[in-house]
């Protein structure tokens, strides 16, 4: 490098000789032109490729966009069209008290019931007769 070499420990002649021999014998073979070209081409390719962090950001953005698109499509699919009848909301606060349009339709099909006990199954009616005495 460019700075002064004054901070390097001084070497005796014998040490300097060994350093010189090691420098000569422990050296990489020079890069051949073809290898140099291949090195540069590979490096240029890697420099142009997106960084791992950028890849994660792109993937995350894509996932977020896909989720938003799916949610928007779902809202559009299940939202009522103009003039379409909206299903009645449950009217009771307990599950047993929930009455929907389907329940009303079943009751209408069954017709009027003269006695409330007629609506009960036979075994329930037997229990009712035993307990209440009817």
């Amino acid at each position, binding site marked *: *490098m*460019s*700075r*002064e*070499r004054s*901070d*390097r*420990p001084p*070497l005796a002649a*014998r*040490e300097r*000789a*060994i*350093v*010189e*021999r*090691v*420098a*000569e*014998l*422990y*050296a*990489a*073979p*020079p*890069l051949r032109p073809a*290898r*140099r070209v291949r*090195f*540069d081409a*590979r*490096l*240029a390719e*890697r*420099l142009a490729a997106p*960084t791992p962090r950028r890849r994660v950001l792109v993937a995350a953005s894509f996932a977020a966009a896909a989720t938003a698109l799916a949610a928007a499509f779902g809202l559009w699919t299940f939202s009522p069209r103009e003039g379409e009848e909206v299903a009645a909301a449950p009217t009771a606060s307990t599950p047993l008290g929930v009455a929907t349009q389907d329940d009303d339709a079943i009751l209408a099909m069954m017709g009027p019931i003269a006695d409330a006990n007629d609506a009960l199954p036979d075994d329930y009616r037997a229990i009712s007769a035993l307990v209440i005495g009817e």
Partner: protein
Amino acid sequence: MTPASRGIEIGAGSLGGVGNAGAAQTQRLFDAFVAEHRDRAVALAWRLVGGDGAAAEDIAQEAFLRAYRSLHRFRGDAKLSTWFYRILVNEVKRYQRWRWVRQRRAAESAEEPPDPRPMAGDPALRQRVARAMARLSHGQREAFVLVHLEGFTVQEVADLTGRADGTIKSHLHRALRRLREQLADLDPSREPAR
């Protein structure tokens, strides 16, 4: 902040532009930096990893890549080349850690240096010197290679490796003593023994 907006100097040029023109100039100057330091980076990595040419090229590639992607972090309080060689030395350490783990798993000998590529000169002598270098501790080899073979100052090596000057000097002293013991018969004034 882009490297261009900081006016970072690479080689003879300066990154002063902004926008696409600035990015193109950064690329051009970085290419020039790579062209200027490629061979030395590979040679230095080769010596630090103990003569593995493929590994040396991979390490140099990774160091250039990391340097390019981290240019925005370069503060300009050191030379760009010094900053780059610090990255390179760290990459060598990363590689050596990885190799150490791999060798332990494979139950291979960590002391055996890879076979040097066919080169001019006495292969047996080269192998002998490579073995002597491989027998140095990592710190000793690093200090010896950077100071005596690559020409960095002790202060620069301290900056590159994050070690104290005194530690570097101590490594240098021990490395030289060990090499002198193992290669005492090497005399540059005569032909190597065959």
